[in-house]
């Protein structure tokens, strides 16, 4: 029995990656849930909006790098992020103008707008391919490790290393900052409250003189900014390929639904539930168990419930289970 090493292995393979991945999902799921509560449709284009924003962050990163501008130990992409956010916001607002506004005007059913968003998804997907191509792009620079595994081993004398990548630390910090800002905005500012009021009772919001177009615009701006941040963090942490962002749609929707569609707190909690579920199911537990029980008990198996190739099945199962047994989600969405 070696509890300490088991704990470190758990931290290294489950907790740290789970927190980082959950943070990235949370920023995406928040955008989905905001759009759902204000515009009342499930935005299937959200994953590709993330890919679009990230593509521009990468382009700006390359531009900065070519001019010799870097952020020292931090990724240059963080400097490029504000520009990427602006482009993403411009894109979602243009999309809203050109596409969604018409369907709002004719008061189209949500299901129609969902299909429309699927169309937007394909267009956005094609644009991203034209802009940056389909191949993998690596744009991470700066210090790779925030906590170096060798340093950790040397400092603690444990056999198991603990590594925290810079990008993982940034993901968590960025998610915390974005959440604090968003919740402050929604709870304390007049504009944020008007967004909640509009989402709560559209007709009464109109009677109270709240301008729906303004609420919609601000919602798109926030969702676009969050999508760009989430996509960039994910791209920094893993690597960038447009198609991967499309498959992020499933875990993000699962997260938003688990928490309760329309509930921002729910989206955050749901994201961590999904992230940790994926890791727990696809992790090979043999290493961690190896420290807890005698080695000959374990045999040759990896103690892995599912191969990582099937991780999307985890969010899919969560989605189905929640929709079957608690469709309103943990925090009672719509």
């Amino acid at each position, binding site marked *: 029995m070696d509890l300490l090493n088991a704990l470190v292995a758990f931290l290294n393979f489950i907790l740290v990656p789970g927190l980082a991945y959950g943070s990235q999902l949370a920023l995406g799921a928040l955008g989905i849930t905001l759009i759902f509560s204000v515009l009342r449709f499930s935005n299937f284009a959200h994953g590709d909006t993330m890919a679009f924003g990230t593509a521009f962050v990468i382009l700006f990163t390359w531009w900065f790098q070519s001019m010799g501008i870097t952020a020292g130990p931090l990724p240059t992409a963080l400097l490029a992020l504000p520009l990427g956010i602006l482009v993403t916001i411009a894109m979602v607002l243009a999309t809203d103008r050109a596409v969604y506004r018409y369907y709002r005007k004719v008061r189209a059913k949500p299901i129609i707008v969902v299909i429309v968003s699927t169309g937007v998804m394909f267009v956005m997907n094609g644009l991203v391919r034209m802009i940056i191509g389909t191949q993998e792009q690596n744009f991470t620079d700066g210090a790779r490790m925030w906590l170096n595994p060798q340093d950790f081993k040397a400092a603690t004398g444990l056999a198991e290393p603990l590594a925290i990548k810079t990008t993982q630390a940034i993901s968590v910090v960025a998610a915390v900052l974005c959440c604090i800002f968003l919740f402050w905005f929604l709870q304390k500012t*007049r504009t944020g*409250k*008007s967004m*909640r*009021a509009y*989402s*709560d*009772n559209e*007709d*009464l*919001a*109109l*009677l*109270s*003189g*709240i301008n729906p177009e303004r609420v919609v615009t601000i919602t798109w701006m926030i969702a676009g900014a969050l999508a760009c941040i989430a996509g960039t963090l994910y791209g920094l942490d893993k690597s960038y390929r447009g198609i991967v962002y499309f498959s992020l749609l499933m875990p993000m929707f699962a997260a938003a639904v688990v928490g309760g569609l329309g509930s921002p707190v729910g989206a955050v909690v749901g994201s961590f539930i999904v992230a940790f579920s994926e890791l727990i199911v696809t992790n090979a537990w043999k290493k961690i168990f190896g420290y807890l029980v005698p080695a000959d008990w374990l045999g040759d198996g990896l103690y892995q419930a599912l191969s990582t190739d099937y991780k999307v099945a985890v969010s899919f199962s969560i989605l189905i289970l929640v929709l079957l047994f608690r469709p309103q989600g943990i925090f009672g969405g719509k």
Partner: protein
Amino acid sequence: MSEPFLIGQNMTGGYGPVDILHDCTLAVEPGEIAVIVGPNGAGKSTAMKAVFGMLNLRQGQVRLGGEDITGLSPQARVRKGMGFVPQTHNIFTGMTVEENLEMGAFIREDEGIAGTMEQIYDLFPILRQKRYQKAGELSGGQRQQVAVGRALMTKPKVLMLDEPTAGVSPIVMDELFDRIIEIARTGISILMVEQNARQALDIADKGYVLVQGRNRYTDTGQALLADPDVRKSFLGG
């Protein structure tokens, strides 16, 4: 006699091609309570919604303080000083009582919002006690108070209430009527639709009995209560 403060005159119209209102007239003076009663489907709510601009009139006019507001949207009428409390979905359930009142004052740019909120808390003391509670967690009567309070936040000159006592107990109903009288005493005109005709006419300065979208009887509340025809047909004897 000079023109009433608010008047919907000879209103004819409906939601679609079929007219629900036929040459219907409603009016109210400052500080007065006007009550619209009548059988189910008489177009009571429709008549009030017409005054508030929620349906298109084919004929007739709505004038507020002498100004023709027939072409204005409901939102624009709120800015002109009209407050409306819908029958259902009249509060923001997920927001606190105080936030509901704040949203009621959304169009106000002046500094006096906190003062108005205090006045509403004085009028409905229970709301002060529950100011940080979500409005959706309150009882039916308390929710109606939130709804009325929200509409009062714009400091309207006219308050329109669509069945404010629907679904509340008789005791709460009396309480609400008392509050409505208090509001009227501050000089606000009240125009309301009520199912509880007897009690509503009892507090009404003016009563309108509508039948099939037309004015059938118009008189003071007391006179209508005393009228044997009205009693027989609409008040159950």
